[in-house]
């Protein structure tokens, strides 16, 4: 569009001239309209819908505080621990910056977990939002990588041994594992070389990917439009005159003011931790991490930070007995279920072959390998949700009792696994973790069947207000 054809900007008082000048050279007003003032969001967002914008807000906190931390931190095995204490003691307001960053890491996961849980409650991943969900999952993976790399940087005992344990998991991969682990570390053990590369990943590589994915997530969201607690499409019912969704309201100003209020509520909770309990009882900053990393002294009890503990529990729950008495029969039963449910011969044959290959693997490879596989799968399986969920309705409000029970059980299993991951191993705890692991996976694997057979109520035509 030629510059002269664009209308002059009005309504900005003394800035009309400047904005017109910019708008004739850059799609400023169009961008603002399509993403804010004329982006129509459903008017019935509830509590759960705060966490997307809050996650974005925490990302900003992490980047800004991260920049200032980088100015004073030394990614050097002999100086890293002391440089963090230097930030805490001698850099003006350094303690504040550092606590915001360390607390922000945990709150990032709180927001993202609640954001994901909202998508599970209201079926926000269902068609046409599959790609939006996939971008979100990739953000989640980046976030986990970011947290893992960042946790090594203070170079405390937990930093060191946590990284050691996780990198050693790659060791379990058959054939290439040991070489791969050395390649990741850059050394035979976690060392200065590892610290330097993790620093590079943490401050530039992963954040870059994270930002790009957040942009993609938002573009996809604004393309398909936001879902809502009723799971109905507001685009289906439009005002015939204006062509605007009847149940939609412009994101700005309605949701900008609402989310601003949400940000302040968030900041109250966040600040209580930052100023009055920055260690959060050892859950956000672990006591052992105030001891400098010592490659010769393995701590008695190595536990990841709370946001990784459910997956860590699944890893530890995968014992030889679990493989033999749960995975093998589970796999056979699941294969039979698929063969019984599908009609296509090709699918049946493929299922049979895959099952036989997996069975051979289960019976020959070390249980540790399967622990790593299950841990990886427990995160990756979320990617499949759009295709596992076959319910005729999107929202939990109209889903039947089986789905509601399944989600409740899944949440309980997630918390139980999370708690067990912070504790040391005993026989009873391992059994509990194994039951939790079974429930966790059954929630996903059986979803195609129970979501379809569940008795759902009909969805309304329009959104309902509470």
């Amino acid at each position: 569009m030629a510059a002269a054809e664009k209308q002059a900007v009005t309504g900005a008082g003394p800035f009309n001239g400047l904005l017109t000048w910019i708008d004739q050279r850059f799609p400023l007003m169009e961008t603002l309209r399509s993403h804010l003032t004329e982006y129509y969001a459903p008017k019935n967002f509830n509590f759960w819908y705060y966490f997307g914008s809050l996650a974005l807000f925490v990302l900003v906190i992490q980047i800004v505080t991260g920049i200032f931390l980088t100015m004073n931190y030394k990614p050097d095995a002999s100086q890293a621990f002391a440089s963090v204490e230097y930030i805490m003691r001698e850099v003006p307001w350094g303690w504040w910056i550092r606590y915001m960053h360390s607390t922000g890491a945990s709150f990032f996961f709180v927001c993202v977990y609640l954001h994901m849980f909202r998508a599970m409650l209201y079926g926000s991943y269902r068609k046409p939002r599959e790609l939006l969900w996939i971008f979100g999952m990739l953000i989640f993976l980046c976030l986990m990588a970011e947290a893992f790399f960042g946790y090594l940087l203070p170079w405390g005992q937990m930093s060191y041994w946590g990284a050691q344990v996780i990198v050693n998991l790659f060791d379990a991969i058959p054939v290439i594992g040991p070489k791969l682990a050395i390649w990741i570390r850059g050394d035979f053990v976690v060392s200065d070389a590892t610290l330097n590369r993790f620093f590079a990943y943490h401050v530039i590589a992963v954040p870059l990917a994270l930002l790009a994915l957040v942009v993609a997530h938002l573009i996809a969201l604004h393309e398909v439009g936001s879902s809502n607690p009723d799971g109905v499409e507001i685009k289906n019912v439009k005002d015939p005159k204006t062509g605007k969704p009847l149940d939609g309201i412009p994101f700005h100003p309605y949701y900008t003011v609402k989310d601003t209020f949400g940000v302040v509520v968030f900041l109250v909770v966040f600040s209580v931790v930052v100023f009055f309990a920055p260690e959060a009882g050892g859950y956000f900053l672990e006591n052992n991490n105030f001891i400098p990393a010592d490659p010769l002294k393995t701590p008695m009890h190595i536990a990841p930070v709370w946001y990784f503990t459910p997956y860590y529990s699944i890893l530890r729950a995968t014992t030889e007995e679990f493989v033999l008495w749960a995975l093998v029969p589970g796999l056979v039963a699941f294969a039979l279920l698929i063969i019984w449910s599908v009609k296509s011969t090709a699918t049946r044959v493929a299922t049979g072959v895959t099952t036989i290959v997996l069975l051979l693997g289960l019976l020959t490879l070390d249980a540790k390998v399967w622990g790593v596989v299950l841990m990886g799968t427990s995160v990756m399986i979320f990617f499949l949700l759009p295709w596992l969920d076959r319910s005729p309705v999107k929202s939990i409000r109209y889903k039947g009792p089986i789905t509601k029970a399944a989600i409740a059980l899944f949440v309980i299993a997630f918390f139980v696994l999370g708690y067990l991951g912070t504790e040391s191993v005993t026989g009873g705890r391992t059994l509990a973790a194994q039951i939790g692991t079974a429930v966790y996976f059954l929630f996903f694997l059986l979803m195609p069947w129970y979501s379809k057979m569940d008795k759902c109520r009909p969805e309304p035509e329009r959104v309902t207000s509470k």
Partner: protein
Amino acid sequence: MKVLVVLLALAAPLALAAEESVRLDTAPIDPRDVASLQAGARTFVNYCLNCHSAGMMRYHKLLDLGLTEQQVKDNLLFTADKIGELMAVALTKKDAKEWFGAAPPDLSVIARARGPDWLYTYLRSFYRDSESATGWNNMVYEHVAMPHALWTLSGQQVQVERKFKNMEQAEAVGRMQRNAWKIDVLTPDQAGNDGERFILKTIRTETAGSLSQIDYDILVRDLVNFMAWMSEPNQLARKQVGYVVMLVLLVLLVLTYLLYKEFWKDVH
């Protein structure tokens, strides 16, 4: 996993008695008690800083405890020349390893790693043990490499054991102790005919030191108070800033809520 199972199987017969960890006393510390912090700083510099460093702590930071530069220089500055220097130590790592078997840890953030309660109990739990290399052992940290640096003040303690038939009795007596205590539980086979399976272990002063037990407890309290303060010297400022921030946020909370409600009046 396999290794773990094998280790557990091997360890089972070795575990003669289930040993409980020591019950930690609550350290009665207060980071606002400047007199206590000053006293703790003095004890720290005189007794700890000979072997332990506090390498992330500057002498200059002691001015926050209400001391003047001259006071610090005259009374506390032994291991450095200038007040801007770090609390280093003359002892080399090599010497330390040779003398104690392990290099004494830096104490800058030890209170955040161990917790004040642990330190408070630990420093009051040394006892004479002729079998250890230093002649000392500790109720909280068995076979610790550190000798009892404060023994001239505390005097010399010995460990005493009392046997009980049930846990409740042993715990009731334990709770009356001024010192650290723990209970070892024997299996019925080990206990013998009298059936006394619960062994309460505690310590008793045998030779008095230059301080009474109460004064020694106070000295340790001050020392731990100082170490807890030193582990995060900005902790008071943090809380003070926190109150101001909370106040500002509460005002913002009201304003943004009213703004939200005002805009949403016309959404039905």
